[in-house]
């Protein structure tokens, strides 16, 4: 498994076997609060980097989740429908949102590394 990368929209991305798994960061789940619903993209959908493709609803509010890279949605985490709280309890593992077949895997390399993301969060 490769290094985990991050976006300034608080998503994490992990490339494994040519497929990128995407979720939201611990910082993001903490800011959102208790998640009660998640709206996931359709499998097969072609997405562009920065496009709002999922929605996460906490008790408090709804927030968009963006595609960190361009590509095709190949899988979504259906278990989140029944247990959206997994996004709070395990945001970077079982709480993943969707998997993208990257149009250009090089896009992932250009995202923030863990230290750069941590430094960015510190500025917020």
């Amino acid at each position, binding site marked *: 498994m490769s290094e985990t990368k991050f976006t300034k929209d608080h998503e994490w991305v992990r490339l494994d076997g040519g497929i990128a798994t995407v979720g939201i960061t611990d910082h993001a789940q903490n800011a959102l*609060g*208790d998640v*009660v*619903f998640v*709206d996931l993209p359709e499998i097969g959908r072609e997405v562009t980097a920065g496009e709002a493709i999922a929605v996460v*609803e906490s*008790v*408090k509010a*709804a927030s968009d989740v963006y595609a960190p890279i361009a590509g095709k949605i190949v899988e979504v985490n259906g278990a989140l*429908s029944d247990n959206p709280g997994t996004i709070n309890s395990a945001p970077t593992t079982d709480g993943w949102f969707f998997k993208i077949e990257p149009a250009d895997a090089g896009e992932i390399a250009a995202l923030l590394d863990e230290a750069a993301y941590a430094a960015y969060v510190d500025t917020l």
Partner: protein
Amino acid sequence: MADSTETLLETPLAALHRELGGRMVPFAGYAMPVQYPAGILTEHLQCRETAALFDVSHMGQAELVGEGAAAALERVTPADVQILKPGRQKYGLLTMADGGILDDFMVANLGDRLFLVVNASRKHVDLPYIESVLPAGVTLKPLPDRALIALQGPQAVASIATLAPGIAELGFMGVGSFNIAGVPVLVSRSGYTGEDGVEISVPADLAEGFARTLLALPGVHPAGLGARDSLRLEAGLCLYGNDIDETTSPVEAALTWTLGKRRRTEWNFPGAERVREELANGTKRLRVGIKPDGRQPARGHTPIHAPGGAAIGEITSGGFGPSLNGPMAMGYVARDHAADGTALDLMVRGKAIPARVAPMPFVPHRYAR
């Protein structure tokens, strides 16, 4: 709502909120805790399970003093204030000449004066409005030096009654003065959660110590504005600025129960003409409860359509009910779509979510008898 760049006011409990890890947000010009580390869901459920303490010191408190104070207040509300006996409180609306709602408020008869609680976001318009109708001899006295603390939940009264047993004797909407741990307080058995509980007016300089005393009682947890909002929505209670405002009438808002019986024969309150006409002929729209199918919440300002059809209204408050364990909302719909069970489409991000008009409260009230 103050812009975040403006200086926010603080309540007397601000230091305590920070110590407790409260996440402070701007609300009605004040820095208020939206939640503590436990989170909105847990704080909500703790209130329904044991007891929750809320700081509501941002709300406006005032006294109306002088001969004829109740009759004077009736110049700005359709509530029957004169019928209110000493030691009793009621909920009412301040109405405007055109029948819109200026604010909702609580009024208590303390024997020698009336005690008022109005919304934080509206106190700057309410108090001058009330003052403008007062006859000579009746005086409105704002009480900015008092904090307001709500203790809500099935164990709230039993807990606080260990410090002041008389509180357990208050009925729902009963009011009394007590001395709790050396602090002179005004207690009313009321709240904004649908649970039994009390709201306590406390001298500001003693409020922090008093709040600590309450938080030390068994089963009492701090809760923020987030839980307060999900609790009141489950209880079907209106939030001024969302569900009622200057454009909504008491009849449209389904708050006709706040119109005093005598007042409906006198028709001498602001907006009486519109209210009378609407009671006789009905309104174009009505506030109703709405339950979306499934789990997805529909928030305020979500358009409401007839199934597969035209726009017929808008959601004014919506979210997820932790005790209901599902989404819930209230909003205004055209009158012929207002009956319980009527199918609706909620247009969330361009997609129609099926929903139905549902009776409120969504979670049964558990007020004291």
